């Protein structure tokens, strides 16, 4: 953490550091700030020159107010329900003696393996007007609209909240629980006075994360929303449907605001979170309790059943001859008649691999420079690294179109390439990747660097011999993270696809959009298969090399 540089004399090492800092700063400016500036500029651009006309045209309308209301209604409802459900689930997994813990945990994370709209797909197949439930029970209710979006969104963000709670509830000081028990507190009281307060930061953090994900998601509202429009779908419609970049950017800016606030709030909370586990803490001892364990087992099984049912019905539908009329087995939906057939899947794999490589290099290096060198630019640099967390994917994608589709600019050659899509994914998920890398970097004591330096090693040797070997399991984890997200993300890349750069998640959306439900399901299944295979491969490699503890699913 401390400097071992000597800026007074400009020798190779200082130059090397300046170079490294530039290498991470320039792309962040080009691929994050530059597109955002374009969006901002475009939102003020009117036929009569710069002005607020676009804002006036959007913000004042009754329709806009309705969209804001819809967005917040859906998002807040989802947030509250998800946080409660996921907290109880995480509690069940971490704090009770549940059978099959690892399996239940894995099932809870399944939604991360598929594009967000797979939840909506499954919901329609299950609960649509002609879905399994209505058909079997002879009822006639409709899932389309508010509740459809809310349920699909809950399923979509559940694993994100669960991961946060799971981490928070995994560690606890047994002494607190023992004192509480000795003082005669009952279980509820212990929960209210010990467990809940110690996880309040996780509760806030999860709320912000869920809020951000839901308010900017448009996959689920598009499929199951019917005519219930939200801000995210409106950006999509304004830009893709109506050629209305100006209004699209205005709504994009409006969307940026609550997300930026949520992210800032989360960071603020995070800074106030000090280690609650001191060196003297004792790990929590779980004692079996038949009643409690039974109740939580039933609950966890229910949640898992719902998650599996929604994903399962999509898989099932992809293999039926003609859902819902001829349920016989058929592989015909896997002969995709979308443009370029299955090619988008391979594009996605390729983009995922590129994003994994670039993402690991970019976030790893950024974390390295920020954690290891005390330079003047450290604070602004680390701010830049987490800015993307506050930018909704579609806003970033829109910025990319505006910024890079200009013939006279030096980077216009990127437009229409898979590389740009990979870059978009890298910088959209930059903050998360960076945080994983820098947390792990912090755990590597700075005295290793210092020991290496005093033994006569150059920075490059230290990096290659010490830092990288210690970091690489984490780097594999980050690579998997970028690969997974690139495979399933929709919102950031929707504006960037071109004929030769169609990606899998967008193919699902297009198929779903045109109503080819079975084929859309089949395509989703292919994506899930690729993600699961990649995860398994990474897991096997790490296990063989003896790194069982590395988290792969984030």
């Amino acid at each position, binding site marked *: 953490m401390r400097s071992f*540089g*000597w800026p*007074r004399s400009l020798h190779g090492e200082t130059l090397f550091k300046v170079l490294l800092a530039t290498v991470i700063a320039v792309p962040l400016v080009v691929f994050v700030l530059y597109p955002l500036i374009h969006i901002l500029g475009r939102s003020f651009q009117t036929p009569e020159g710069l002005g607020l006309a676009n804002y006036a045209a959007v913000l004042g309308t009754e329709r806009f107010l309705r969209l804001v209301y819809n967005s917040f209604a859906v998002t807040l409802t989802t947030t509250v329900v998800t946080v409660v459900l996921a907290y109880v689930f995480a509690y069940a997994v971490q704090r009770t003696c549940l059978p099959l813990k690892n399996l239940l945990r894995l099932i809870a994370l399944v939604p991360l393996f598929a594009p967000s709209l797979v939840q909506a797909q499954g919901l329609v197949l299950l609960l649509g007007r002609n879905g399994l439930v209505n058909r079997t029970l002879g009822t006639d209710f409709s899932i389309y609209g508010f509740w459809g979006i809310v349920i699909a969104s809950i399923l979509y963000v559940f694993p994100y909240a669960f991961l946060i709670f799971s981490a928070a509830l995994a560690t606890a000081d047994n002494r607190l629980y023992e004192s509480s028990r000795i003082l005669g507190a009952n279980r509820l009281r212990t929960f209210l006075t010990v467990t809940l307060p110690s996880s309040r930061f996780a509760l806030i953090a999860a709320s912000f994360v869920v809020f951000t994900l839901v308010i900017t998601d448009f996959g689920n509202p598009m499929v199951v929303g019917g005519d219930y429009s939200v801000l995210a779908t409106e950006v999509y419609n304004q830009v893709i449907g109506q050629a209305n970049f100006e209004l699209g950017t205005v709504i994009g800016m409006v969307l940026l605001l609550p997300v930026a606030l949520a992210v800032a709030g989360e960071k603020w909370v995070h800074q106030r979170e000090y280690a609650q586990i001191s060196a003297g803490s004792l790990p929590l001892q779980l004692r079996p309790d038949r009643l409690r364990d039974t109740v939580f087992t039933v609950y966890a099984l229910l949640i898992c059943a719902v998650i599996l049912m929604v994903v399962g019905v999509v898989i099932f539908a992809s293999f039926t001859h003609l859902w819902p009329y001829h349920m016989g087995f058929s592989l015909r939906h896997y002969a995709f008649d979308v443009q370029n057939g299955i090619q988008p899947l391979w594009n996605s794999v390729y983009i995922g691999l590129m994003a994994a490589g670039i993402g690991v290099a970019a976030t790893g290096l950024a974390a390295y420079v920020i954690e290891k060198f005390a330079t003047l630019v450290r604070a602004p640099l680390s701010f830049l690294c987490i800015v993307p967390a506050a930018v909704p994917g579609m806003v970033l994608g829109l910025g990319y179109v505006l910024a890079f589709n200009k013939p006279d600019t030096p980077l216009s050659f990127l437009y229409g390439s898979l590389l740009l899509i990979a870059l978009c994914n890298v910088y959209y998920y930059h903050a998360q990747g960076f945080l994983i890398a820098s947390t792990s970097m912090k755990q590597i004591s700075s005295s290793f660097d210092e020991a290496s330096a005093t*033994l*006569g*090693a150059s920075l490059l040797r230290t990096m290659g011999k010490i830092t990288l*070997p210690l970091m690489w399991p984490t780097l594999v984890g980050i690579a998997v993270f970028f690969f997974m997200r690139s495979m399933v993300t929709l919102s950031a890349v929707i504006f960037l696809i071109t004929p030769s750069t169609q990606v899998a998640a967008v193919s699902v959306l297009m198929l779903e959009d045109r109503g080819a439900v079975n084929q859309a399901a089949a395509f989703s299944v292919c994506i899930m298969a690729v993600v699961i295979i990649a995860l398994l491969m990474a897991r096997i490699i790490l296990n063989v090399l003896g790194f069982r503890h590395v988290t792969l699913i984030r």
Partner: protein
Amino acid sequence: MALELRQITKRFGRIKALDDVSITIENGALVCFLGPSGCGKTTLLRVIAGLERPDSGDMRLAGRNLFSVPARKRNFGVVFQSYSLFPNMTIAANVAYGLECRQWRKKDIVQRVEEMLEMVHLKDQAEKFPHQLSGGQQQRIALARALAPKPEMLLLDEPLSALDAKVREELRGEIRLLQQHLGITTIMVTHDQEEALTMADIIVVMQNGRVMQSGPPMILYQQPENRFVAEFLGRMNVVPAGLGVPVPIGTHPTGGQPRILGIRPEDIRLVSDQKKNGHLAGVIDQVTRLGNLTRVTVRVQANNTGCHPDEGWCNGETLRIVAEMQGVHEDLRVGMPGFIDIPFQSVRVLEWQ
């Protein structure tokens, strides 16, 4: 070959970690930087190692300016408090690391690693990984790794603080022997006065980023210049001048009126009746028997002194004076009157610090 530091100053934000530090470290000596945590001793070591850049000052090794030489080019061996053995390398690889950095030939490296491991009696552990070794063993390896490239100087940052008492004592002797055997100039940072007193040729006592006094251990113990050094090294009764305690004439370091006096507990004699004027009268407050040593605290009413408001003593206040005597002294009881006899040659005049 002496290491000379002149007027080194280093700030961390508003905190002055090093304040105008000037010391000279002679060739072949074992020097301890001693002081409470936060006194700047580790920062000073890091400045010498090249891990921290001072804001101002001058630093020379045998006349060569060290100021802008980066850590990796200084050729100093450093042992860190946490050992910092590279967890991804075997013991042998750890020891070889510095040699590889210096591009030694393979054959020489193998030979030197063997030699170093033999020196720390851990030759059979060469292919193990650091986490498979005990704390003491890890510390020895760290020492071997630091010494392998034949450094010009050895810097030890609280090398023994993480070990348990028995291992610590063992290693103290070993390090000292090794240092004398190799004749390598060594700087060791410690907060443990016993460690400093038993190992060092020279002790540098620091507080608030400044050097309070430096010199051989016995000189520091016997002739502390100021209250801080006096109290940090061993026990010291500190009393205001003018209490009736006899003052050795001409011993005041800066001349003028002495204001505080220090007396080691072992120099004080406790007598049962007041024979001389020089005896202070008091009441025994506490008696602690530590085997064959008896420590007695006597409460003395300081009624015949003038007022020293800036020193916090005033007429009528109570002083506690500790005496240590060999033997069991079963006759001493709390509440008994006690008369204190202070031989004037054992009174030190201290600077107010």
